[in-house]
Each structure stands twice: as C-alpha cells, then as structure tokens.
C-alpha cells in the first residue's frame, strides 16, 4: 500500500516521534525482540483429543465443567477458554486445540485504553478487571477473536486464556501442559520451541507440513502449531498479516502530536491573515 498518504504520514510520524520523546506512545519493536517470551508448542499429530486440557483449564479458572459430549467444531466462549476440535481430513481425523495465541505484539493490548489487557514481560497476555471498562475494543481488534465478554453479567469479565500466569509466577508450567497425557503441548522459551518444531519437521518430513503456524502469523504468537495437514483445513486463519497488528495504527498515532502542533499554527496563521480582510472576504465569497 503506497499512494501518498504513507509518505504524508511518515513525515508526520517522524515529527511526531521526535515530539513524543519520553512519552513512548507505542512500544518500540526493538525492545520487544530482545525480550525472551515463553510460549507453548502444540503438536496436533500427538494430540488424541482426550480434552483433558479443557477439563483442567476450566477447573483451574473457576469455569463450568465442559460437557462430555460436544460438537466436533466449537469456539471458545465466556465459559471456556480452550476447545479441542476434530477435523476430517485426507489424513483422517486431525485435532486442534484453540485458545488465545498470546501474540508477541497483541492487538488486544494495543487496543485497550486502560491497559487492562497487558502483555507481560514473560509472554502471557492477561486481563485486569480493576482497570477494564468493558468497551470491548480488544474484541474488535483481536485477529483471532479470542477475548470473550460476559454479556449476561452486570459486572462482566473478559474471558480468555491467560497462559496460567499465576502458575507461571509460582514456577509451574500451565495447567494444560502439566496434564496432557500425550505430551502434545510443550512449554518453553519461544525461541527454543521454534527450534524444537523445526527439528520435528526436519526429522519427520512426511509427518508434518512445512509450516509452524504462529511463527510469523500476526507478527508472531506465543502459541505455535504443528500439523500434518495444511492449517486452513484445521479452521486456522491463514490469511493473517505476517507483521504485527498494532503496526496498522502506528502511522495514525504517531501523526497525532504533529497535528497538534501544525493545525493550530496553521489556523492561527489564517486567522491573522484574514484579520484585516474582514469585509473584503465577505464580498468575494459567493
């Protein structure tokens, strides 16, 4: 996307960035890269769809126990943070676990005007009920539609996977990882997980498609996926941007400080210029 607004906004953005020194309007991507996020690697070829993770997750987060009999394909909602879906493919049944992806640069946190949605330094994206005002802009912005809102409540929460932040702080792995009988989920540093995923693909090229979902999607996510079939067959959105979503608003946000300087100056200038023309302008205007 070029045209001329890019250039125009870039000029504004450079001015704006220099004006906003110290205010740090948008987290700079450089510092983001230096931090080592933790993440989880999900290998759908190992998953047996026992749904243990669903049960353990619900219990750990005080959510209602999942139904024993469910439809093959579901979405997470305000009563469950994760679902395991079953897809019929040419390789037979393939399973996929879905939950918040814990993006490296989450759209939800950039959208949140109260910092209730927050990307912690270690990786999990968490929600703070004392800050949230329930505007649901995070839901509008999340490319995976993961934040879920309790519409029936008078004191609603935003529900989504928090990667068991509290357990992590206590030095434990997330509850789904701790309880998976098939070792389909692996917790670790994101960089190590990507290496591990590459190794699995390299050693068993027939078993996997050559794609780690989440390595680049949405600018990189905390959850990483391996699969034996192309990811669109597993209901995963493969049309997502490969750079971060907050980037989409940076041009606009950076131009704000310059607008605040340029527009009033311009207006004052015009005002001064027309001050003496008072009557003439009236005549000239049709």
């Amino acid at each position, binding site marked *: *996307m070029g*045209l001329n607004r890019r250039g125009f906004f870039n000029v504004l953005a450079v001015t704006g960035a220099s004006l906003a020194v110290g205010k740090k309007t948008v987290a700079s991507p450089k510092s983001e890269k230096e931090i080592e996020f933790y993440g989880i690697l999900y290998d759908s070829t190992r998953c047996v769809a026992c749904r243990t993770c669903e049960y353990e997750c619900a219990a750990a987060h005080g959510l209602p126990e999942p139904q024993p009999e469910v439809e093959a394909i579901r979405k997470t909602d305000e009563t469950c943070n994760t679902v395991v879906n079953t897809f019929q493919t040419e390789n037979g049944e393939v399973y996929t676990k879905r939950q918040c992806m814990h993006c490296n640069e989450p759209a939800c946190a*950039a959208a949140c005007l109260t910092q209730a949605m927050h990307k912690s330094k270690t990786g999990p994206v968490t929600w703070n009920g004392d800050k949230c005002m*329930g505007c649901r802009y995070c839901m*509008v912005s999340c490319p995976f539609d993961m934040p879920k809102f309790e519409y029936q409540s008078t004191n609603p929460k935003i529900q989504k996977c928090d990667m068991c932040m509290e357990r992590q702080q206590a030095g434990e792995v997330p509850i789904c990882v701790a309880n998976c009988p098939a070792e389909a989920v692996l917790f670790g540093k994101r960089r190590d997980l990507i290496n591990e995923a590459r190794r699995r693909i390299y050693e068993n090229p027939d078993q996997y498609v050559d794609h780690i979902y989440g390595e680049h999607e949405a600018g990189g996510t905390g959850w990483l996926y391996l699969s034996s079939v192309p990811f669109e067959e597993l209901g995963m959105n493969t049309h997502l941007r490969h750079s971060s979503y907050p980037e989409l*608003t940076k041009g606009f946000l950076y131009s704000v400080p310059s607008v605040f300087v340029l*527009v009033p100056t311009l207006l004052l200038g015009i005002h001064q210029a027309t001050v003496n023309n008072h009557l003439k302008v009236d005549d000239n205007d049709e």
Partner: protein
Amino acid sequence: MITMNKEIQLAADRGGKSIWKFLLSELKPRGKWLTPFNLISIPIILVGLALILLRFAEGLGAVSNINQEIPWGLWKGFNVVTGVAFAGGAYVLTFIVYILKVDKYHSIVRVTVLNGFLAYMFYAGALVLDLGKPWNIFNPIIGNSFGASSVLFLVAWHFLLYIVAQLIEFSPAVAEWLGAKRAHKILSGLTLGAVIFGITLSTLHQSGLGALFLMASEKIHPLWYNEFIPLLFLVSSVFAGLSMVIFEGSISQRVFFRKISSKNREARNNMVQSLSKICAFGMFAYLFMHFLVFIHGQHWNLLNTPMGYWFLIEMIGFVAVPMGVFFYASRTSSLLLSRVAAIITIVGIIVNRLNVSIIAFRWDAAVRYVPSWMEIVVSITIILIQIWIFRWVISRMPVLDEPPKWANNSH
C-alpha cells in the same frame, strides 16, 4: 463583597428576579404540550428509559443482540460512530466563521455549536450505556491506566476535551441568557482559543473514529477496509456535518419561525446555497479518494457479488447522486434541491458508517448481527432526549435570534 455587587447587578438584568427564581421559572415548559412530536416522543422515551434500567439490572445481553464476534452494535455504530460525523458541522462552521471570518454564517454558528455540543454529550451517554463496566470509565482519564497506544484512548480524550471546547464556544449564549455581562466578556474572549483547539481535536477524532477499525483488517469486507479509513472519515465528516446543518436549518426554520428575524431568514437561504457548494466539492474529493483506493486495492472481482452491489449503491446512489444534486442546486439556487441532497447525503453517511462498523464488519460471520427492537428503541430515545434539550435551550437562550443589544459589541 464583589460577588454580592455582581448578584445585584445580575438581578437587575433579569427584571429583579433572583437567580434561583429565574432558573426555576425557566425550567417550566413553555407553549402547548399536546404537540404531535411530544405525543410520539414521550412514550418512546419512557420505554427507552425502562430499557436502560433493564440493561443495568441484567447486563448488556438482556437488551442487546451483540455477540462474541460482533461486539459493537447499534449504540456504537449508530449513536457514536455515525453521530459524530453529523456533529462535524460545528468544526467546519467555526472554521469558516472564526478563522476565515466569513461573516454571513455568523447567525447559524451558534445553533450548530449547540447542536454539536449536545450531540457529543449524548454520544458520551450512549458510550457509557454500552460499556460493560462503566464505573471504570475514569481509569483512562485519571489514575495510572493510560493506554496511550490505543486509538480509542485518543478518541476518548479528544471527545472529552472537545466537549469542553464546545461548551466554551457556546457559553456566551448562556451568559446572555443569564444576563451575566462580565462573564460574557471573559467567555467571549476565550472563543478563538476554543475554536482553534476544537478544530484540531475534531480533525483528530473524526479521523480517529475511522482509525479505530484499522486493526480489524481481515474482519471488514475488503471493499470497505483500507488504510485510508481515517482520511475518508475526516473528509466525509465535512459534508456530513454541513448536510446536517442544512437539514436541521430547514426544520428549525419551520419550528422556531418566530425566533428567526426576516433578515436572517433570507441570509439563511443564501447560506444554504454556499454550503451546498462546499458539500459538493467535499463529496467530489471523497469520491475521488475512494476511486484511488479502489483502483489500488484491485477489487474488481468483488464488485460482482452481493456486497459489491451494496458498495456500488453506497458510492453511486448516496455519494455521486447527491453530489450532482448539490452542484445543480447551488447553480440554480434551489433551496428544495439542496434539502433533498442533504437528506440523501445524511442517509448515505448512515449507510457508510454502519457499513464499516456493523454491516461489512464480519460480513462472513455465521451468525449475523441484527439489532434487537430494544437496542433500536434506546438508540432513538437518546436522540429524542437530545432534541428535547435542544428545544428547551433554543426557546430560552439567544441561539437562533439576535443576542441582546448589550452583547453585540463583544462579538
């Protein structure tokens, strides 16, 4: 001592009544009660207020059809996103009158600012209704929860500041109503500053409302999503606002006939003609930008789909056609045609804003969002209450009619 002196002086201006008695007497309704407008609006407002109570007692889900995939419904898409575009008339007119100093618009700038001010107050109201946890609304304003990387954060702040700026712009009329001469002088002196500040804020939040949807890049149908949404929203707010000024003017001219002097009445017709021309040029620029964006996006194949037809209806039926009518109306100085064009434009802006925020948003979702009757009633209630207050102010403060003599030289 000083305040007491002032009190006495003020009381003299109001025919000897004390300020409280004066305010009390002004609160009473004036004129006939059983007008058709009252008969229709009062029941709707009562039902709407009951529904608002229900919303707070039972949660949003009890009245609204919004869901997990389409979290913003009619209140955000119509009352906020669409409404703000229509309030754009205030910043355009203050620009023309106070910055360019085209004096002939002076007689309508007050009513437009009043309209804008009330509109913003009520959008803020609609926003609060829509918030899941409205008691936390002050978090981004005070406290340590500045989500400065959020477009919504900027929009919220600009909203708030703009309401203050508009209040200052309008305050001389309040001072004239109360007969407060000294306050009038001070407040009039603040006008230029407020205007400059207000225009700056407007350019930012008009475009900001578009920028809200920038991150929803895959969720909005490609015919409506592009990185120029902020610019398109800003440009369209110019003719949206002015069309509203034309439309609103034609109504208040009828309803408040006695308030408008015959001199102003004639000037108004002349104004409509010039405003039509500005609208037409604005729409031309808007169409041209849309055209560039469309060529650039290479979405030709999408035109031959139901959403594509809908897009063409919006662009041709609600932008190109009223643009032509505006041009023609300003050529032939036809008041009627200008009003017709204004109405088509208003409908078109509603269509456009609802398209971006609701109709083309998750156009592919399995469960489509259709507002419940309760949401619609609440949406209408908000607008009706706004009209009630507007009417109350108009019939009391010098908005449409000439300001009192003593106030004239300070303007």
